């Protein structure tokens, strides 16, 4: 744990936009990426032209552009969150089975999803609280979690009640097993996998302080 302080890269916790900027920076040039509904959508604001990232939306498009505004709004051109979007040069449209084949066939490099919980081994829970009376709705979450080469999660580390969302074992209904490879939170970036959880960087806290918040054994990730 001697490297603990060296992985702190920010004196304060990251806000949602700073976190989105960090995720965007970590996406390799030329990648094909799906950004989930909600917070992950913010990542698109920070992708640069030089990165040449192609965005997929599971309702049938590659080459999705920014949100549509004003006269650009077209009811026939929406993203998976049903927000009007735009089309970039080199885009393509396809039907739903072909679109999900892109995800399910392992062709997407990265998908970025929100989460309720992530387990130490990368299990994901993000679709259902399991609360009595809650209407379940899964959408494409399970396909994205299972199909992409890398699944990045973006979330606050703690619930409003202060409980860690990184857990030994998920208590919410699972979306996928062992699928999450990285977790971006306001307090740090975690690498998950069969060998447990490594911390790549911390924001506004040390690894030791982070360990007090998270009920899973943490280690420092080897320097990249």
């Amino acid at each position: 744990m001697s490297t603990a302080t060296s992985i702190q890269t920010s004196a304060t916790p990251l806000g949602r936009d700073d976190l989105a900027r960090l995720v965007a920076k970590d996406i390799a040039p030329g990648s094909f990426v799906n950004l989930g509904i909600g917070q992950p959508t913010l990542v698109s604001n920070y992708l640069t032209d030089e990165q040449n990232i192609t965005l997929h939306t599971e309702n049938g498009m590659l080459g999705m552009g920014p949100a549509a505004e004003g006269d650009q709004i077209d009811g026939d051109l929406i993203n998976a969150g049903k927000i009007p979007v735009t089309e970039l040069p080199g885009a393509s449209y396809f039907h739903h089975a072909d679109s999900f084949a892109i995800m399910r066939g392992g062709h997407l490099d990265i998908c970025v999803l929100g989460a309720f919980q992530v387990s130490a081994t990368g299990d994901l829970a993000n679709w259902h609280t399991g609360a009595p009376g809650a209407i379940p709705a899964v959408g494409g979450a399970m396909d994205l979690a299972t199909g992409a080469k890398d699944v990045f999660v973006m979330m606050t580390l703690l619930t409003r009640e202060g409980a860690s969302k990184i857990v030994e074992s998920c208590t919410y209904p699972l979306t996928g097993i062992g699928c999450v490879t990285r977790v971006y939170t306001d307090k740090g970036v975690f690498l998950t996998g069969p060998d447990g959880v490594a911390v790549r960087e911390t924001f506004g806290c040390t690894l030791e302080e982070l360990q007090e918040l998270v009920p899973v054994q943490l280690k420092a990730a080897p320097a990249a």
Partner: protein
Amino acid sequence: MLTFVDSVQEAVSGIKDGYTVMIGGFGNAGQPFELIDALLDCGAKDLTVVNNNAGQGDQGLALLIKEGRVGKMICSFPRQSDSWHFDTRYKAGEIELELVPQGNLAERIRAAGAGIGGFFTPTGYGTMLAEGKETRIIDGRGQVFETPIHADVALIKALKADGKGNLVYRKTARNFGPIMAAAARHTIVQVSEIVPTGGLDPENVVTPGIYVNTVVRVPAGAGSTAGTEEKVA
């Protein structure tokens, strides 16, 4: 057999109580509102409806559900900010829900059209949506057995049809249209425009006419931007 009809009422007139009806669209894009309105008017009930969602606001599928015509929904995302009619019926125990991951929904519809008896997929393995389903490990990955979803009728929306029933769509309004057209015994399409045979480039036809049974022209103009889904996390 392909027929061109003059009204949406005539188009849906063969839909009977108890039918399984696929309805195209993702949110409002590609949703055949006028055909759904006609289905509401024709009075068919005890329907099983296959759609990605379970209706939004006070239009289309939401009204079918409000009026109690739908006995069962097969969909991936029934919970939306404006899905109040489904919410009410569901909480009252008046509508059955088969919740299917969206990719399994699409692949099961595609399987029906392609004559596949069933398939294994990793999606959903180890989750409550695979409970009670056959599973096996293939190449080291847990997989779930999923079966085709057939339908008596599909109601879909396309941009143009030619005289042979060939279809092209517009942008993300394509979504479920092509696979539903193939999965249903009888496919009813509303299009903005009918062009003469030969008026569509054979390289660009998305749905060949073999999958189309009834075509009705509904001039564009309806359809607004959909409400947004609830955020996760």
